[in-house]
C-alpha cells in the first residue's frame, strides 16, 4: 500500500527492462523505481548486473527492451546534448574510481566544476576543499591517483561525484576496500548528503549491514530478475528463501554463488 502513495515521486522508473551482452541475458523483464530523495540500495551476487544497471540508468548502454525514465525523460530517446544535460545532474562513483590519472586529486575533484561552470578559481578552491574534507582527504589533495590506495581513490571519486551537487548520485560499491573507520564515515556521509540536500542516492553494495542501516528501500537482484524488494525491516522478516540467504550471507540456498556453468564434476 505504502508503495502506491509514493509511486509518482519516483525519479527513476524502469519498466520491463531487458538487456543482453552477446549471448548472456543480464536483465530479463526487470522493473524498479528509485524514489525521489530516498536512498535506494541495489544488492545482488557478484556478476548479477548491478554495474550494468547503473550504466543503463546513466545512458551509457541502451536496453534491448523496456524503458528507463530518469527525471521524466526517456533516457535512450534523448539526443546527445539532452543526454549530457541530464548527466550533469547525475553523479556517478565508478567501481574502479575512474579518476583522471594525469592530474592530481584536487584537479580531479575540480574537473567537473571547471568544465561546467565559470566560477572563479577561489570559489572552486573552496568547493573542492569542502568536498575533500568531507571524505577526509583534504591533506591528500596534491597526490596523483597512482599514489593513492584503492580505498582513498574511491573516496576521491566520491568527492568528484558530488562535486556539482547533483540531484542524484549513483554509488557503485562505495564501501569496498574501506577500513571500519572510513566505512563508518562514508555511511554517515552518504546519509547526511541525502537528507540535508535532498539528494537521491542509489547504492550498489555487498555490505548488507551497513547498507541496510541507511537504505530506505532495497532491491535484491539475481539472474536478471528482481528477487526481493522492500524496506530493510521488511526484507529481514521476509519469508523468501532467496532474500533470507542473501541478507544473512548463507552459502547454500537458491542464489547461486557460481557463474552459470556445466556440472562441476563433468567439467573435471
Amino acid at each position: 500500500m505504502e508503495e502506491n502513495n509514493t509511486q509518482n515521486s519516483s525519479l527513476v522508473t524502469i519498466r520491463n527492462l531487458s538487456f543482453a551482452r552477446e549471448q548472456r541475458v543480464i536483465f530479463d523483464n526487470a522493473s524498479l523505481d528509485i524514489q525521489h530523495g530516498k536512498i535506494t540500495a541495489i544488492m545482488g551476487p557478484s556478476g548479477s548486473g548491478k554495474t550494468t544497471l547503473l550504466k543503463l540508468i546513466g545512458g551509457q548502454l541502451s536496453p534491448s527492451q523496456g524503458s528507463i525514465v530518469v527525471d521524466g525523460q526517456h533516457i535512450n530517446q534523448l539526443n546527445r546534448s539532452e543526454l549530457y544535460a541530464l548527466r550533469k545532474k547525475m553523479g556517478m562513483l565508478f567501481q574502479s574510481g575512474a579518476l583522471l590519472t594525469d592530474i592530481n586529486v584536487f584537479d580531479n575533484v575540480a574537473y567537473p566544476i571547471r568544465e561546467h561552470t565559470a566560477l572563479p578559481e577561489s570559489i572552486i578552491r573552496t568547493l573542492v576543499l569542502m568536498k575533500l574534507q568531507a571524505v577526509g582527504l583534504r591533506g591528500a589533495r596534491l597526490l596523483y591517483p597512482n599514489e593513492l590506495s584503492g580505498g582513498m581513490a574511491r573516496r576521491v571519486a566520491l568527492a568528484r561525484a558530488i562535486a556539482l551537487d547533483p540531484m542524484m548520485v549513483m554509488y557503485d560499491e562505495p564501501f569496498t576496500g574501506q577500513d571500519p573507520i572510513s566505512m563508518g564515515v562514508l555511511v554517515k556521509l552518504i546519509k547526511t548528503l541525502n537528507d540535508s540536500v535532498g539528494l537521491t542516492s542509489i547504492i550498489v553494495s555487498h555490505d548488507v549491514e551497513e547498507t541496510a542501516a541507511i537504505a530506505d528501500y532495497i532491491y535484491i537482484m539475481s539472474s536478471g530478475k528482481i528477487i526481493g524488494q522492500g524496506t530493510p525491516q521488511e526484507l529481514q522478516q521476509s519469508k523468501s528463501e532467496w532474500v533470507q540467504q542473501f541478507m544473512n550471507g548463507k552459502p547454500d540456498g537458491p542464489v547461486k554463488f557460481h557463474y552459470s556453468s556445466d556440472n562441476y564434476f563433468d567439467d573435471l
Partner: protein
Amino acid sequence: MITFLSTIGHSVIATLTKTGRGALFLKQTLSYTFSVLCQPRLISKQLFSVGVLTILIITISGLFVGMVLGLQGYYILSDFGAEETLGVMIAASLVRELGPVVSALLFAGRAGSSLTAEIGLMKATEQLSGMEMMAVDPIQRIVCPRFLAGCLSMPLLAAIFSMVGILGGQLVGVSLLGVDEGAFWSQMQSSIDFYDDILNGVIKSVVFGFVVTWISLFEGYDAIPTSEGVSRATTRTVVYSSFAILGMDFILTALMFGDI
C-alpha cells in the same frame, strides 16, 4: 570450404565495420574543430607532447639522413664530374620525399604509438566512461585537441627534418669532401622550385600528419580495453600508419610529379 568462406566473410565484414567506425570517429572529431580551436590551451599542451617532444628524434635522424645523402650523392655525382649539383640532389630528395616520408614514419613510431597507448589505457581504466558520465565528451576533450596538434606538428617536423638534413649534407659534402660551397647553395637555390618542390612536400606532410594522427587516435579509442588489447592496438598503429604513409606517398607522388 564453407568455414573457409565464412571466415573470409567475417573478416571482410569486420574490416568494413571498423572502417565505418573510423569514419564516424573522424567526423565526430572534426565536428569539434572549431570549439577546440577557441580553447588554445587544450591544443598547446598537446602540441608540446606530440610535437615538441618529437623534435629531438627528428633532428638527429634528419642530420644522419642528410649526411648519408651527402656521401652517396658525392660518390655518384663525382663519376660524372657533377659534384656541384650535390646541393640540388640533397635538397630535392629531402624536400620532396625523405622529409615528409621519413619524418612521418618517425612521427608514427614516436608520437602515434604513444597517442594510441594513452587513449587505449584511458579507455581500459574507465577514464573515458568517467568523463562521459560527467557530461564531458571525451572526443571533444581528449581526442580533438590531440588530432589538431598532430595535424599541426607534422608539417613543421617535416620542415625541420629537411632543413637539418640539408645542413647535414652540406657538412659532409662541403666541409668534408670539398664541394664548392658557393656552387652547392646557388645551384640549390636556382633549381628548387617553391611550388613544385616545397609546396608539394608540405602537402604530403600535411596529408601524412592527418592520416597518422587519425589512425593513432582511432586505434586507441577502438582498442579492446585490456592491457593486451592496448598493446595490440599500439602495434597496429605503427603498422597501419607505415603502410598508409608509403602507399599514399606513391599515390601523391604520381599525382604531383607523374604528369598523369
